[in-house]
Each structure stands twice: as C-alpha cells, then as structure tokens.
C-alpha cells in the first residue's frame, strides 16, 4: 500500500490498512519461486537433454503472451512482470513428459492461463492451480503422448520405459532408491530428480515463502498412510520411502500444493488440506486405475479450500459458537 507522503514536511501519514508492511511484494516472492525451480530445470536438461529447455521455453513464452493478451482485451493493467505467468509456464513445462510436442505445450500453456486463471479474474482469484489445470487438460486431450516416457540419458538399453510408479503398479518392479533420489528414472521432466526439488523446496520453506505446514503434513500423511499399508503387506504395497521419492510427489508437494492462492490460509486448515491430499494420493496410487494421483489429489483439494477456510476460521475472542 502506498502512503501519502508527497510532501516530506507533513507530520501525519495517511494510509489504509494493512499498516505493517513486509519488505517483499508478490513480485519478489514470485521471482524467488522461479529461482527455486531452476535446479529442477537443470536436472531436466541433464537427464532428458537440451530439447526440454525448448519445451519449457515455449510453455513460459505462451503463458506470458496469453496473460498479456487477456489483460489487454479486458483493458486491465498488464501485470506480466509480477512473474506469476512465468511460474505457471515453468511449472507446466516441468510436469510434461520428455520430448513433448511443442504445439501441444503451447496449447496447454494457453489453457492454463486462460481457463485456469484469467477466467476467474486473474491472479488471486483462481480456484485451481493453473499449471495443474493445463496438465489435466493435456492429459485428457492427448492421453497417449502424455504417457509416453522417454528414458533418461543415463539409463540402459531401452528407448522408453514405464515410470517407477507404473512399473511397480503393473509389473511389480521396484526401482533403485538412489536412482529415484538423483532422478535417473523415466517420468515428467522436472519431477524425477528428488534432490533438485528438495534444494528448491527447502530454500522456499527456509525463506518463508512456502509455509512449512503444507509440505510437512503431506509428507507425514504419506508416511503414515503409506506406512500402514506397507506394514500390513510389504510385498504388495511399496515402502513409504518409495512413495515419497517416486512420481511427481515431491514436485507437487513443494511447488503445486503450496500455491498461495489455492491453499488454505489458516494453520489448522493447512494441516487438514495436507493430510487429505496425502490420503487421496495413497488411495489413487494403491487402489486407483492410474499409477499416479498427485495431480488429481491437489486439484480435488483445491476445490474444497474455500470450505476449509470457512470452517477453520479462528474464533474472535468472546464469540459464541
């Protein structure tokens, strides 16, 4: 908020609330998130080749163009420099499979921004995480190319192979933990390398952009719910460590579920949100028809965030229930 201090000789400052200002604006936070995503971009290039950089570039470019175009049509101020469109583009690019077609990437980016965000009124009004809306759209529009997984550069023999989760689900093959940790497995380009995501994610939590409650509750939830099934039958159900490292779990936990706009604002609400996401993930992974359910889990929980916010609102002192 601006304070009215045009003339320094004025003693009285006039401003509307909020009166305590953070050093950071939305703009700063957004660019911090962008920098936190860079390790994942690097891991994508290392494991899947330089072409992935073009895919990410196209995704970012079309996100920015769409945002600017819609703002222009609606005669609103063009707010591309706040970086939110860049983040959406980056996130979408990073959750696409390797060697994805550029035209479909552009389409996904346009859909993300136009339908996922701007239709609701722009940044701050969207119900669903825009990047996930775009990915869900692409998943439904091009199911075959969205599930064609090219092998990472340092894997043996084959050209394509199943992701760790579908290998486990359909063929009962376990993937080595160190490969999962480094990212030398097939999967979406940004989601395979656990270490790269952890670097970015912990950076975001440390500087306070991401509230620790959301990632912590999702991880705890997966450990608890996944652990229960693992204890019941270790041969049939995967270990919690595998659940944590495989698929898009970490990426979704740190970068998608923690989106400011689409996650709850109260502390209690964040815990509820996180545990429900992890429960849905475990249900889809172990009993659903799909190998991976992080995307749908987050989208489903995004839709109930307003409800969570309402029911976990803190009570005003003295208010009767």
């Amino acid at each position: 908020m601006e304070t009215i201090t045009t003339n320094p000789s004025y003693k009285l400052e006039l401003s509307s609330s909020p009166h305590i200002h953070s050093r950071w604006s939305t703009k700063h936070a957004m660019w911090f998130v962008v920098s936190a995503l860079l390790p994942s971009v690097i891991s994508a290039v290392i494991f899947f080749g330089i072409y992935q950089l073009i895919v990410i570039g196209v995704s970012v470019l079309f996100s920015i163009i769409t945002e600017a175009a819609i703002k222009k049509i609606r005669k609103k101020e063009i707010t591309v420099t706040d970086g939110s469109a860049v983040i959406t583009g980056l996130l979408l690019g990073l959750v696409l499979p390797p060697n994805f077609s550029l035209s479909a990437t552009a389409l996904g980016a346009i859909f993300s921004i136009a339908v996922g965000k701007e239709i609701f009124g722009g940044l701050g009004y969207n119900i669903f995480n825009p990047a996930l809306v775009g990915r869900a759209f692409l998943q439904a529009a091009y199911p075959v190319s969205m599930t064609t997984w090219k092998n990472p550069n340092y894997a043996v023999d084959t050209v394509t192979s199943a992701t760790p989760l579908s290998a486990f689900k359909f063929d009962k093959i376990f993937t080595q933990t160190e490969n999962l940790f480094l990212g030398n497995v097939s999967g979406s380009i940004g989601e395979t390398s656990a270490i790269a995501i952890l670097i970015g994610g912990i950076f975001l939590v440390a500087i306070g952009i991401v509230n620790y409650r959301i990632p912590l509750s999702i991880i705890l939830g997966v450990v608890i719910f996944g652990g229960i099934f693992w204890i019941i039958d270790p041969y049939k159900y995967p270990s919690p460590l595998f659940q944590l490292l495989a698929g898009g779990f970490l990426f979704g936990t740190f970068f998608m579920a923690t989106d400011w706009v689409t996650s709850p604002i109260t502390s209690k609400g964040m815990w509820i949100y996180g545990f429900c996401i992890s429960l849905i993930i475990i249900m889809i992974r172990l009993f659903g028809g799909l190998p991976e359910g992080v995307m749908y889990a987050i989208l489903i929980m995004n839709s109930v965030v307003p409800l969570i916010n309402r029911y976990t609102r803190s009570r005003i002192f003295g208010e009767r229930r």
Partner: protein
Amino acid sequence: MKKEKTLLQEFVKGIDEINPVMKQALGLCPTLAVTVSAINGIAMALATTFVLMFSSLMISIIRKLIPSQVRIASYIVIIATFVTIADLVMKAKFPAMSKALGPFVPLIVVNCLILGRAEAFASKNNPLKALFDALGNGAGFLIVLFIMGSIRELFGSRTILGFHILPHSFEPMLIMILPAGAFITLGLLMGFKNAYTERVKRKEREDIVKNYRAVSKLESTNQGL
C-alpha cells in the same frame, strides 16, 4: 401491464433473450451428451423441436380442460405421445442416427425444456402463440446444439458435419469428445454470451446518458440566451 408481444417477437425471444440453453439452462442433459458431432446435435435439436412444437400446441389447445392438480401428469402423457412418434420415425427412417443418439431420443420425455415451456408458457397462452414460442425455443436450442457440436467435432475429430477442416498434422483432442470437453465448451459459450449481452446493455445505457447530457446542455445554452 406488460406489453403484448407480437408473434414474431415470441419467436425471436427464444433464440436470444430466453435461449433455452444459454439463459434458462434447460435441456442441458442432451446438450452435453449428444453434441459429439454437429450432425448429432442437429438431429437431436430437430427431434426435440418436433416434440416441443406439437406438445405445446396440444397443451395450449386443451389448457382449459386440464385440472391444475394433475396438469404435470397430463403434460407428460401428451409429451410422451409425441416422443414415441419421434422415436419410432427415427428408428424407421434414420436407423444409424437413432443408434448414435442412443437413449437420448426416448429421454426427450423428461427433457425439462419441453415441460418447462409447457408449464411456463403453453398452459397460459393461446395455441398460436404457444406454437411460435415453441418454434423459437426449438430454433434457439438448434443453434446452440449446432455450435456446440461443431466446436467439439472440429477439435475432437478435425471435421465439421463430416467435412475435413483441420489438417492431418493437427492431433485430435480426445477431451473434446469426452464429457469434460462438453462442460468446458458450454461454460465458455455461456460466458462469452453473457459478456456480449452485458456489453450491449452497457453501450445502450451509455448512449442514453450521452443523449441526456447533450439535451441538457442544449437546454442550458438556450436559457443563457
């Protein structure tokens, strides 16, 4: 007292002002379900229009004979009669189309558009008016279903009415054939329609304000003289 509408106005209002899908949100079930291709949409809309026309006419003719306690049941009987005719005719003459539309032709019986128009209009107005109202609503329904069908067919299978429009390099989007695509298309169509209507209304209001100012200015200068 509201102004009496002419027959032409009764017809036109069904297309724009009270468009069954866009404004009344009636008949959404067939709108979403059968619009996989443009031709399906047209066939469905024509069948619905046929039933709507004759049932509205019939209900309007006997509207004073139907006791109000059992009116819904009576309407349903009349509607079901015409739906049966439509269904049997389609099965005999266009078996392929009948198969493509599946259960949605018999389901016209419970299409809220027809019952809605019967309850809201035909039971209160004379047969001629009811007929034009039904025609207008049918036309509005046809236009929306054709547009929806065209959009979904274009992106879902690269054609409109069977003609190839998009090149082969365009990969068809499966989502447009799935129900999700229908919801997205309908939502966007309604949104654009509402935005357009708003814009027209705003323009009218601004014009009125502008004219009013011009007049008042003129008057004030006159006074000055």
